[in-house]
């Protein structure tokens, strides 16, 4: 199925969990937060959260700024 990951289309398998996507994007899971469809998903739920087709997934990290 297709999801929108940080603004880009991404093809993922139907049983993909949020934790799988984090592993693909970043080598660290600290200092990162995820919103799915504009709702924050706490880190404790990443392992158990699956996605639906068209889900908007935003994965953010702290960067230099301000």
């Amino acid at each position: 199925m297709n999801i929108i990951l940080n603004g880009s289309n991404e093809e993922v398998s139907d049983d993909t969990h949020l934790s799988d996507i984090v592993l693909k994007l970043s080598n660290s899971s600290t200092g990162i937060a995820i919103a799915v469809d504009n709702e924050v998903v706490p880190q404790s739920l990443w392992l158990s959260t699956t996605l639906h087709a068209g889900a908007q997934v935003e994965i953010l990290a702290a960067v230099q700024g301000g």
Partner: protein
Amino acid sequence: MADHFNLGGQAWNSRLIMGTGGAPSLSILREALIASETQITTIAMRRVNPATSGSIFDLLKELKIAPLPNTAGCYTAGDAILTAQLAREALGTDWIKLEVIADDITLLPDPIETLTAASRLVAQGFVVLAYTNDDPILARKLEAVGCAAIMPLGSPIGSGLGIRNPHNIELMRSQLTSPIILDAGIGTASDAAQAMELGCDGVLLASAVTRAQKPDLMAAAMKFAVRAGRDAYLAGRIPKRWHALASSPERLTTKVQASNSVSRSPKSDLPTISAANPEEDQRESPQF
């Protein structure tokens, strides 16, 4: 007695809050942060970039500096609230520097969106440090909705133009009990000292240090400037006067000579200074 900076329910030794934007590298930023002796430093939240090496969050942890996430780059209250929630989740802090800008040319704060976001974030338990215009009335409203600190700009972000309306900052100080942190526009050390002399509780700056030719040296300069300005504010400056006021004791002979040599000029509207009666100069000091 130690002069602690009470912010967000904690007492801090440093009144200088640093930003991290604009630094050429993490190692240069590291040196600057150490030199500044800051205890709180802002970071932004952005989409994960797998190519990024080194973590600003890890650097702050290593230096034992409290991270202050911001909502930089947000244009609406909704964006800012979601960013604050993500920052809380990612960094484990309730603190948020609320920044809702109106456009990317001026980078000036959007007052309506800022106030809306501030009141909602306070209701959600955030410690809100609100970046705002130098508008004393808006500042009063941000305080009323429960912001932990009001952060007026001195001038636009990154402009280095200093404090363009010191009178507004003084007005704000006279009306607010919340901490006021001068944020944005600081160009050099004297700007930071001026902010503190005007009664601000702290200063937040980034570009002035990170874009200086020697960031670590400028960071140290800012540290001293903030301390000097704070001490000057606490010490209470002398009133400005129209005429000189001798700082040495008078000499008897001078007194006689002076009374002969100083006389009223017919065209001058200034009062005569009579050395025989120095108290005569009772004219009120002008406001500069």
